[in-house]
């Protein structure tokens, strides 16, 4: 146990000094703000020919207010935040192979289980902080918009906020876990990122689309996909949307709430188990 803690400390020491980690956080923050607040605000403030069609200006403004913070923040998860988390997981665990530092780390003291556990804890902590940053930025932007438009600055209840935050962390943990497990199994960064992003942004959308329309036989398959379950989990914690506004892309209710949460948790556990199993038994060349 002290070994796990030591590894976590070492990993966090590295992470806060690692430019790539900050770049990913900055990208997530920027995209989250642009899609959650800037574009809706511009469509509201503009002449009505803005990018969001078919919704009233009032609804668009309402979607940027503090009581919609969970929807505004989680809305971006299926489109970009998940992919960024996957990249992050692959970077944290896969880079060690590219630099050859696996052998350096594994000859310090902690055994393999302790090293991987410590890395997983550090990964989870960073993800939790990252999601928190997105929520805090969302809180700031929505409050600013509400104040400038003389609208209500009331936030959702603490319970709803915690639910939204928890779901967000769970979803990001799943993607980071998938990236990390792929990083360990494939012993690198490039291949996991390539495969992962193709999967998240391509294959899964394709399967979801086909299963919902032409080939309903694929539904059981669709309902165990990580992205579908993440989207269902996100929608489970979102407040009712202002009238006339569609759900953000990728947010769905294909899978029942409880089942989505369990599926996401299962992915986290399976990723950990697969990574640990491979990490423990493979020779380190």
């Amino acid at each position: 146990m002290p070994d796990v803690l030591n590894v976590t400390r070492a990993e966090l020491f590295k992470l806060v000094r690692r430019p790539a980690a900050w770049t990913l956080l900055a990208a997530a923050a920027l995209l989250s703000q642009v899609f959650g607040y800037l574009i809706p605000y511009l469509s509201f403030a503009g002449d009505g020919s803005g990018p969001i069609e078919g919704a009233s200006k009032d609804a668009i403004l309402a979607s940027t207010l503090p009581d919609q913070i969970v929807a505004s923040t989680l809305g971006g998860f299926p489109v970009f935040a998940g992919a960024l988390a996957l990249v992050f997981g692959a970077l944290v665990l896969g880079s060690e192979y590219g630099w050859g530092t696996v052998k350096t780390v594994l000859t310090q003291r902690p055994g393999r289980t302790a090293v991987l556990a410590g890395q997983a804890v550090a990964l989870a902590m960073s993800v939790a902080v990252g999601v928190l940053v997105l929520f805090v930025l969302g809180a700031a932007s929505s409050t600013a918009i509400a104040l400038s438009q003389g609208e209500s600055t009331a936030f959702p209840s603490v319970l709803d906020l915690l639910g939204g935050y928890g779901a967000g962390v769970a979803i990001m943990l799943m993607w980071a876990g998938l990236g990390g497990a792929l990083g360990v199994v494939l012993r690198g960064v490039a291949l996991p990122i390539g495969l992962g992003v193709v999967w998240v942004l391509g294959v899964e959308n394709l399967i979801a689309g086909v299963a919902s329309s032409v080939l309903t036989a694929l539904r059981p398959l669709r309902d165990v996909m990580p992205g579908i379950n993440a989207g269902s989990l996100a929608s489970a914690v979102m407040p009712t949307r202002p009238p006339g506004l569609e759900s953000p892309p990728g947010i769905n209710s294909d899978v029942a709430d409880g089942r989505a949460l369990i599926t996401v948790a299962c992915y986290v556990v399976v990723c950990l188990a697969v990574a640990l199993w491979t990490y423990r038994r493979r020779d380190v060349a």
Partner: protein
Amino acid sequence: MTAETVVEVRELTKTYGEVAAVDQVSLSVRRGEVYGFLGPNGAGKTTTLRMLLGLIRPTSGDLMVLGRQPGDAGVLARIGSMIEGPAFYPFLSGRANLQVMARYAGSGSSKIDETLETVDLASRGDDKFSTYSLGMKQRLGVAAALLKDPDLVVLDEPTNGLDPAGMRDMRALIRRLGDSGRTVILSSHMLGEVQQICDRVGVINAGRMVVESTVDELRGDSELVVRATPADVVRSTLDQLAYVQSIRSLDDEVRLRVDERHTGEVTRALVLAGVDVREVRRIDRQLEDVFFEITAKESSHA
């Protein structure tokens, strides 16, 4: 195994597919000695050291390090190592890399400055690892190995990439480690290097342990090179000298195995026989010569 044995390896084998990278290797390293692991490229040195550290699993054989199985946390905490070149985080400075390793090992950062000083890297400690030259990376690798104040230091070709002054310093450093009571295992393909700093040597070739002996035994195997003409008179004169253990003729020179104290007598005998002596010189035998002789011995036994 006795309390004095730090590393005990018995019939260790590692095969990759058909190839036996390490084939039935046995060796033992005693407390406080500097043990040289000598062999040409591809001999199996790195593979053996990796097994000592628990990085790879042996195909078969027994292996005890500091009285326990390799890879055990209690054992790893007492070993400082650098295997097959230094590997660190390119975006961190040399010092920060050592801080990371101290955190992994749970050993505290108090020795970092001192260690950087030891490997002569103090002035560049705050530069990024990615900007280091090959030799500086190598020094940082050795620094990381020393950080834990280890009982056992395992260094795979520690002088690789160092300039002549760096090599000399590194050898002196390793010798000091040995003299301060630590056990050191180092691998090398340079016989001269191993002779300078090691107490005992294991010679490995093509995965097999060829010989394990003290350095003095290997040094006793140095040769006297004689360049003189005419060749037939040289040969017949030398053949009559009882204290010459062996003679072999190579191109335009003759190589003798003869004790150092007889060097003068050999020269005198040659001069008295009317031979033109152009050169008499003692050489440390090269690794190839050791192999040449041992394989010759093995085939004559067969």
